[in-house]
Structures are given as C-alpha cells and as structure tokens.
C-alpha cells in the first residue's frame, strides 16, 4: 500500500507540470490526444466512520483517484480511444487499475452513431462522468444516486451503444438518445465485495447482461435539459461462505433488476440547478434458499452559483431510502440517509481546483445489509443516527 502511494505521488509530481498542456503526438499523420485527471480528498467525520475510511478521529486521506486516456480521430466519422482509471478509497479500489472505457465510435450522421467496446453507461445526468471531479461543483456527488462505494455497479458495459441527436427545429429543441446493451461486471474492490468480505465471505464475481436507454430533451428554453433513463440488469454473483466445516461456494442470480431515473438540469448565466429521481429494484438471492428484494428510492435537488470567475458556491439536498422487501412505504427509523450539503469550489486556474464541503447526514441506511456508505465493519462500536462530515478535495486535469 505504502509503495503504491509513493508511486502515485511520483506520478502526480511528474504529471502536474506536464498538465499545462495536453500531450499530443501523431501516428501516421493522425493526432493522438492524451488527457488525464487526478484528485486527492480528505474526509473527517464527527462520528461514524464513512465510505470505508477511518474518518472519525483525525480523518482520512485515503481518497485518491486518477485516470489517463488516449484517443484518436481516425477518419472524419471514426474515432477510437481508451482510458485507464485507478483509485484508493479506504477499503475500496485498493490501487488496482481498471480499464475504464475503451471503444470505437462511428458517427454516420448527427442522428445516428455507433459505439462498441467497453462503453460508459448513460444513466441520468452524471453516471458516465461521476469520476470526473473537475466537472462537478460538488466534492461528492449526491450519494443517494451516485454512491461512490457502488461506483462500478452501473458505470460501464462491454457491448455497444446506438446514439444520436435529432433536431426538432428552433421551436421544439433537440432530442438526444442512447440505447445500449452488453455485459456489466462489478469489480472485486467495490462496495458489494467489501460488504460480503466484511461478513467473512469470499467474493468471487458479480456480472451479467444489461440493456437500457436514455432519452434527453434540450428544450427550446436555453439551458433547460430534461431526460429519462431506464436500465435493466441481470446479474450472477459468486462467493464463498467460509464455515469451520469448510468453504461452501454460493452462486446467486438476480434476473429482474431495473432502474428508472428522471432528471432535469437548468443553467442560466452563473446559476446551475439540477435534480434527479431514481427508483431501483433489485431481485437478490439464491433461488429457493434465500430470496429478497431491494426497493430503493432516491432523489436530490441541487444548485450552484458562480459568485466570481474562480469561486462557485453549491448546495444540495439528497435523500435516499431503501427497504426490504416489497413495500413502497419507507421503513420507520432505518434504511434512509438524508444529506444536506454545502460546497465551496475554487478554480485555481484552468487545471487545478479545490473544494471544501460540509455534509450533515441523518440516518445510516441499512449497514450490514446494503452497501450505502456506512459499514458495520468500520464501526464496531455501533452507529449513531447522525453524521457530520467535512470533505476537502483537490483535483487537476489536463
């Protein structure tokens, strides 16, 4: 771990000066663009340990990520590229690099294009850009919809997209669509694996087919975007139960998971307002042995205002509740997290930014049953119902 941290520091030190400009070169007369980003965070909580880090004493700086990509416009319509991503967040990521995306794109017409390979999934406003800290005013996106510990649950698929923009004329705006299908896989260093392993199970794999679509409308009112996404997932997970009598391999299937997400964004001059609602249904368990459903409702409303060129203030209210099994009624007292957040962002220059953020949370979700930020293994003393957190995060991109 220590060696990896040293390596990352060296990487950042080398990269930072280079970041003044993107590093481009040519192959066979065609330009290859290299871009990258990195961020380093620090989290302190007044009580419960959060996001698999030991945050409640001095705080934790185990909150690092970086990515680097290369892409080439091969012809007017055809482009290729790939991005590597690596992170260490408490007990997640653990510095194991991932192929974040790697695909070929052919854009036949503005209204018809194709992508194939490992493709970032378009789901709501920010699923495909959730790691790109420099794009967002917040240090942590609303955890109700973009839980950082379940980052890879909906992040990408190995398969293809069909996409395009359809102009509806000046009076009616523009429609953008993406339809996709492929295979998704959650890594061994994400929240599900962490939860299983904290129950002394050995994680094997989680993956399966996913397909879905996103439709978004750029309204004729300048700055207004409204959209809806739907995703269906089938997953098979394998893990091992370690009993004194010996290990027992388990294979579980989810065959009817889905997510519906509705969203809107409005930008006007220096103001940005965004809101999303997500309803998700997970069908978990081992057939005829242990079956249960997860019923999740999540939403947030946020706003950001750039008070001067380099300073932005932002805030959101994020609410989430999760229930077992079939009830649409929020369980009393447990299963929810309400998070009030205020953020200040300073853009030091085009490449570097710094964010300071306060979280005021009520509720801890369902620790021990679902990976939603608070884990029993990190809080052996038990969890208090409220948590306040300070997040400081710096990032750069080139």
């Amino acid at each position, binding site marked *: 771990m220590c060696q990896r941290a040293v390596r990352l520091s060296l990487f950042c030190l080398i990269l930072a000066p280079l970041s003044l400009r*993107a590093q481009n070169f040519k192959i066979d007369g065609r*330009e290859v*663009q290299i*871009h990258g*980003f990195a961020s380093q965070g620090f989290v302190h909580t007044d009580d419960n340990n959060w996001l698999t880090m030991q945050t409640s004493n001095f705080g934790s700086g185990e909150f690092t990520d970086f*990515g680097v*990509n290369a*892409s080439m*416009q091969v012809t*007017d319509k055809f*482009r290729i*590229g*790939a*991005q590597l991503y690596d992170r260490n967040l408490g007990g997640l990521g653990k510095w194991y690099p991932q192929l974040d*995306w790697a*695909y070929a*794109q052919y*854009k036949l017409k*503005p209204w018809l294009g194709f992508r194939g390979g490992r493709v*970032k999934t378009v789901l709501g406003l920010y699923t*495909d*850009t959730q790691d*790109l800290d*420099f*794009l967002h005013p917040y240090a942590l996106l609303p955890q109700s919809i973009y839980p950082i510990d379940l980052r890879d649950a909906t992040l990408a698929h190995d398969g293809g997209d069909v996409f395009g*923009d359809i102009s509806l004329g*000046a009076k009616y705006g523009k429609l953008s669509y993406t339809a996709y299908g492929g295979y998704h896989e959650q890594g061994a260093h994400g929240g599900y694996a962490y939860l299983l392993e904290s129950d002394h199970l050995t994680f094997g794999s989680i993956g399966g087919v996913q397909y879905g679509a996103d439709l978004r409308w750029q309204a004729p009112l*300048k700055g207004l975007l409204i959209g809806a996404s739907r995703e269906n997932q089938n997953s098979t997970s394998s893990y091992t139960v370690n009993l004194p009598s010996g290990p027992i391999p388990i294979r579980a299937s989810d065959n009817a998971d889905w997510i519906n997400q509705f969203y809107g964004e409005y*930008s006007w*001059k*220096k103001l940005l307002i965004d809101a999303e609602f997500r309803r998700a249904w997970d069908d978990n368990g081992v057939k005829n042995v242990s079956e249960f459903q997860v019923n999740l409702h999540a939403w947030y409303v946020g706003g950001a205002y*750039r008070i001067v*060129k380099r300073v932005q203030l932002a805030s959101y209210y994020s609410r989430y509740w999760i229930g077992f099994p079939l009830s649409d009624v929020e369980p009393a007292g447990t299963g929810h997290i309400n998070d009030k957040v205020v953020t200040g962002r300073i*853009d030091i220059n*085009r490449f570097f930014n710094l964010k300071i953020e306060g979280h005021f949370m009520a509720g801890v979700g369902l620790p021990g049953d679902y990976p939603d930020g608070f884990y029993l293994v990190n809080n052996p003393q038990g969890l208090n119902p409220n948590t306040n957190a300070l997040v400081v995060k710096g990032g750069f*991109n080139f």
Partner: protein
Amino acid sequence: MRYRTTLLASALLTLSLAPHSLAADLKIVANPSVRSDFISPAEVRGIFLAETDSLKDGSHVEPVFERSGPAHKIFLKDFLGVSSESLQNHYGALVFTGRSSMPRSFNSDAEVVAYVAKTRGAIGYVSASASTEGVKVLEVVAETSHSGRALLTQIQPEYPETLRQLGISGIVRLKVVISPQGNVETVSLLGGNPILGESAMKAVHEWTYAAGPTTTTLIVTVPFGTH
C-alpha cells in the same frame, strides 16, 4: 403550372443575413476547402459544441477556438450562449468519456488564421479587424424567423416536365436580395441543378416580402420532387 398564393413557405426553408450584432465584431473564418460561403448561427453552435462535424453542404469541419480575448468573449456570449467554464466542462465531459477530441485553441487572431489557413476543414472566429489572408470569411446567416421579413406572396416554381418524368429531383439554394419595400431585387443561384435553379429563380423573383427598414439578403432553399 404556376399559381399565386399567400401561403407562407411551409415547404421552403429560408435564411437571412444575421443581425449585425452577431456579425459586426467577429468574422467566422474557414479553410478554403470549405465549400459553403454561408453559415447559420445554429450551424456555428452545433460545430463549436461538437454536436456536428459538417456543414449543411456536407463539408467536414473542425472547430478552432481562441483561448481568451474580446473575440472569444463575444463568440461565447453571442454564438454559443455559454460561459468559458461551461464550455470547458462541456468538452471535459466529451473528452473524458471518449466521445470527442479536445478542439484546438490559440492565443490570438493571427494564430487562429494561420492554423485555419493550413488545415483542411478548419473553422474559427477572429475579431472583425483581424487580417484574414489565406482563409475564407463565411457570411453568417440566420433563420428567416429572425429576419423580420415575412414572406407575403409566394409563387410555386414550375417543375420542368422532362425532369419530373425522368424522376430528377433536388434542392436549389438561391441568394435573394429584398428591397426595403419587400420586392425581390436580385436572385442568384448558389447551388443545385441549373435547370431546376432557373425555374426556381424565375418564381422567386415574383415573391413579395413584408417591408423592412433596409435591404435584406436571404438564402432561400427550394425543394423539387421528393425532397
């Protein structure tokens, strides 16, 4: 067959020269390989926000930005309607999800002109006073709804019988100059089949528009057949 009608041109798309607020302080410049002499603000927006990479005439284009300066500020405000930070975020999202390249940007008008002059399909913007040697200056045109010159009388062009029988169809683009009184002063053919063009010019010459304070130049697109 010819007939007089007061129908607005539902089947015709007309464009007019942009309000001078869009064009007065800036010039849109392109590499001479770009075929078109005109560009609409909607096309500018689409190209510079990476929504499209070609003009309506099919020319492939590559946007080129200035990094800062008065021309850049005017361009962002008048053409794209976004702040510098929003533009940076827009391209950040595209580049870091692999959907587009980061466009080139330069520090000065002279650098933009030099790059555009030597790069096939490049299109950029410079301040109105900049030298544009080696590049082509595109005339900015806006949708007719923004011109303030409503079409009052429209004569349908004759579809030459021989071409109809042969199934030859197409779109003709005309440059039309309208007097302050609303009469068509001149019509010239910009593109399309010359026989269809001749027929379209003849008809358009008899169109009348609402009166306006000055002479207005429009780009008129006339479809024939199945177009």
